[in-house]
């Protein structure tokens, strides 16, 4: 048993207080469920057995498939006929359908309450089927993974941009981020050169076919960059300082970005690029940083006046250390509220894109795609109700968690 610390940390206290609320516990459990389905969905709904014997030899097909996706084992062929007599003692998962498996006997929108062409109740489509006979329930389980992945990666990108820009602009303001002339010249030229090489090097090396060259050259450039930075810090070009008005720059980009309606921007970018999970996550990332930036910035404005920051400044600790070691960790808590709200919004955006047909490619099943399918066939209400309910509950849970966090932290 671990010894309980006499003074619990800020985060532990916050968590304990939140956990005392029933609604928070429910929201938390909903997210645990989604995470569980995202990771182990393949073991709950799949059309290949969990366990079987092949000519008397014990096999775990789904587990082997998971291993093979990490490159450790050879999977069964996609075309393996599991009804073959060589396979005995088969144990199927709870839902014996995978998200993409087509059940021809039950194609054409079979209702969850209606008659289904099934061997036994073990094979029933509990939430119905879609037009080509795919199981809605297993599709929703696979959709949980998509939603979780898209929202976590997307909000991760947004959080990195938002925390960085917001804390820099709040902490440094317009008159405190200063560089000597030499540093400034080095930084700007170095940045331009770096972005140029980022564009030109792949073109140059793609035809020569020496891929590892790229990594070596990139690493060499980085080392050169750091070495030169040390030289530049000796200030060979004099100590004339240049200020970077980072606050005005951030505010300006916030204003410009905030002006374009987010959903329209998402829609247009989604239509421009061939859809994939990472493209959608990226779109969510680059459209959701403004709110995090704004929140972190206003929090940072309060924090930088606090005594511990002032005392750190008295001790001549470098500014960037004060920012990243003292100030930023205290701004993360409040930013968590916006991030939590953003996760709900990210799931909504993914569903919105899929709903309008600009989402993930056809071979990936997501919640929004069921809603889109329901528009073609009004009598198939189960395609709209159940996936929509999942979207709604997830957004509701995320909103509620954000709201409770806000209450506990005493934010407005």
């Amino acid at each position, binding site marked *: 048993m671990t010894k309980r610390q006499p003074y619990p940390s800020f985060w532990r206290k916050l968590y304990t207080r939140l956990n005392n609320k029933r609604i928070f516990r429910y929201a938390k459990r909903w997210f645990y469920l989604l995470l569980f389905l995202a990771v182990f969905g393949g073991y709950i709904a799949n059309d290949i057995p969990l366990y079987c014997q092949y000519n008397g030899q014990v096999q775990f097909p789904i587990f082997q498939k998971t291993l093979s996706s990490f490159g450790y084992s050879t999977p069964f062929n996609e075309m393996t006929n599991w009804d073959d007599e060589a396979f005995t003692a088969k144990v199927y998962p709870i839902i014996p359908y995978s998200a993409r498996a087509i059940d021809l006997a039950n194609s054409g929108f079979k209702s969850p309450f209606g008659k289904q062409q099934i061997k036994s109740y073990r094979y029933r489509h509990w939430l119905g089927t879609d037009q080509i006979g795919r199981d809605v329930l297993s599709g929703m389980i696979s959709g949980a993974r998509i939603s979780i992945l898209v929202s976590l990666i997307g909000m991760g990108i947004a959080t990195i941009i938002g925390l960085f820009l917001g804390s820099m602009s709040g902490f440094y303001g317009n008159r405190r981020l200063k560089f000597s002339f030499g540093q400034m010249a080095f930084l700007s030229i170095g940045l331009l050169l770096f972005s140029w090489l980022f564009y030109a090097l792949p073109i140059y090396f793609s*035809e020569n076919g020496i891929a590892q060259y790229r990594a070596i050259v990139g690493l060499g450039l980085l080392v050169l960059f750091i070495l030169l930075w040390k030289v530049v810090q000796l200030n060979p070009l004099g100590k004339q300082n240049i200020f970077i008005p980072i*606050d005005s720059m951030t505010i300006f980009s916030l204003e410009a970005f905030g*002006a374009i*309606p987010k959903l329209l921007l998402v829609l247009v970018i989604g*239509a421009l*690029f061939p859809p994939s999970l990472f493209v959608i996550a990226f779109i969510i990332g680059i459209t959701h940083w403004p709110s995090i930036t704004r929140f972190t910035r206003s929090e940072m404005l309060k924090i930088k006046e606090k005594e511990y920051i002032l005392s750190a400044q008295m001790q001549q600790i470098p500014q960037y250390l004060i920012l990243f070691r003292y100030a930023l960790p205290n701004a993360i808590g409040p930013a968590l509220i916006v991030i939590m709200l953003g996760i709900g919004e990210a799931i909504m955006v993914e569903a919105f894109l899929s709903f309008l047909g*600009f989402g993930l490619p056809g071979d990936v099943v997501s919640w929004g795609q069921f809603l889109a399918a329901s528009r073609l066939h009004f009598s198939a*209400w189960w395609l709209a109700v159940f996936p*929509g309910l999942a979207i709604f509950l997830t957004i509701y849970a995320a909103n509620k968690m954000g709201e409770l966090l806000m209450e506990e932290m005493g934010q407005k």
Partner: protein
Amino acid sequence: MTRYVLKRLLLLVPTLIIISMITFGLSTLTSGDPVEQMLGYSIYGDEMTQQEVDANLKQYQLIAQQYHYDLPSFYFSISPANYPDTLHRIIPLSEKQYVTQLLKIYGDWSAIDKYQKSIAQWRNDFLQKERKTNNYSSIIHILNQLNQATSEIEIENLLQQLSTFDEEWTTDQPAITHKLFVKMKSSSRKKILIPKFTWHGFNNQYHHWFGGILKGDFGYSLRDRKPVIQKIWMSLPNTLWLNIMTLIIALVAGVGFGVYMSTHPENWGSKILMTKLYAWLAIPSFWLASLFIIFLTTNDYGAWTNLFPSGGIGSFPPGASFLKKIMIRSSHLFLPVLSMVLPTLAIIAIQVRRSLSAELQKTYIKTAVLKGVSHRSVVWKHGMRNALFPLITLFGTVLPGLIGGSVAIESIFNIPGMGQLLLVSIVGKDWPIVFGILLITAVLTVISLLIADLLYARLDPRIDLTGKQSIYD
């Protein structure tokens, strides 16, 4: 106040320029050839003779010139040093993409240029030959392939195939092409790594596009070459109807609910309302709309569920009275507006409750109560005045959200508004309309945000307008 307004208006200019640059930057990422889309047919074809292709190219050039597609895209460009300055002049777009691909693989522009011209010459020479043999079509096919091949292996393979038809050639163009290919292959590629800055001047696509927008000309649809602004103008009223109705209803109901909840916090009604509001906030409006259209507009679930018309905005019979017109319009707009109202209403009500509850705790309210001001007057005159300020800033988030959300609602209920135009244009790759809509909604949002800010400054005397402090702090 005047100084503040002027300052805000001046700040608007760079914001608009940045927005236009973002929009234009996105528009350069589009796929497809806009000029070919305007022409409506492809200029190349396996069966086409050289004369036909030339005639098509002339037509292409005319349209490209008319709509400025033959100009460089921005004031300047940064490209690898082996790119020619006049890359933008190569038409059609497919040819430009082919040359760009060659430039990425081989270093020397003059060698590439000569090689490419010699293939065209080769094809031309072959087409002019009088006697046509059995191999004619297969040779033309390979030559066309050669005119698109970029990688070394691909070109070598095609040249190998062509060398089996050696008796067909009347000129020594094949040998020249071979020689030029070897020269192009062995040219140095080091120039690719060196950046080159080119200044194109003011005669560029962005300049013409932005200048046109300032004059109210947003370009032309690639479908029917109609002005973009005309198409948007036709669809704007329906979207505005939808959004303004939604906003008014959400505002009235939201403020009402918010005031009720903050003045009767212990009432069971307000507790139920509170949980309801958080649920409404989480409902995606497009899901709600799908549920409405599935369950309330068809006979699929019994005759009594067919309550509303299933789409469109309704057409008026001739000679309909004003009341009848309103009835038809409102029966069609009821469900779309309702599905957009609920989430918006929830945001407004929660905000009003939050700020009004905070205001009602303050001492000046106590003073007012103690000196005998009536309850209604305390809430609406003293409290609400201060509580409404956050609501003004809320418009900044509500309005763009509504415009974005109405895309899905319009497509579900088949309302011919701006959102549906946007969707149709995206599917049809009619990009000038897409980016026109993006820009117009952005400008509308910026202006409404500005109005909200100015209103805020006008109404709240606590805001310092002397300009000593940054307006953002």
